[in-house]
């Protein structure tokens, strides 16, 4: 069974550009989460989808970040326009039910220069 997959694995963009990260959760997992880890800090929650609905987006840093999960399958996280402080590793995770183990993807390392 395929795990959570993320694309791309690395992205280097200039400040002001747009980047879109993609996450494919484990098949059948209704719950999809985005997290990120900026340099030297803890992994922080961004948002949570249940199917195609945003359940909790309290961790989204600002309106430059837009997450979607059309159709309740894969999800995208768009950063527009990117700023230097957005650099970090963005993780996606999925879980079958609420309050159960979440399985993480390998992450997308975003570098904004």
């Amino acid at each position, binding site marked *: 069974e395929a795990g959570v997959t993320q694309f791309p694995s690395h992205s280097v963009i200039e400040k002001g550009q747009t980047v879109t990260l993609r996450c494919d959760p484990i098949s059948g997992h209704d719950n999809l989460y985005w997290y990120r880890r900026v340099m030297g800090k*803890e*992994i922080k*929650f961004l948002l949570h989808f249940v199917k195609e609905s945003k*359940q909790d987006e309290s961790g989204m840093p600002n309106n430059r970040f837009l997450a979607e999960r059309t159709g309740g399958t894969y999800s995208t996280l768009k950063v527009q326009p990117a700023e230097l402080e957005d650099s970090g590793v963005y*993780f996606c995770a999925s879980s079958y039910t609420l*309050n159960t183990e*979440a399985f993480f993807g*390998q*992450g997308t390392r975003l570098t904004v220069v």
Partner: protein
Amino acid sequence: GESVGLHLPTLSVQEGDNSIINCAYSNSASDYFIWYKQESGKGPQFIIDIRSNMDKRQGQRVTVLLNKTVKHLSLQIAATQPGDSAVYFCAVYSGAGSYQLTFGKGTKLSVIP
């Protein structure tokens, strides 16, 4: 909100010895706890979990202990092997309808052959 701390940044152990990694949490309503292992270039990998109605849970070579009185969590790895070298994170679900994980800063375990 929740905070997760008691951060020991690094831990070095001799191969074959037991390792103990500690974590503290702040919210007494927290009800589900997970330990993750992260190797270089990979996402967090689920190791073991425990719910608040238990105080101990064992897996293969790993044991998690939960002390709700002092809000402390520990991961014990028996007979530590070189393949155990990684960064270990505790993560906490705060309960009360929140399904976001709060992560600690992580402890880097180095196994000395």
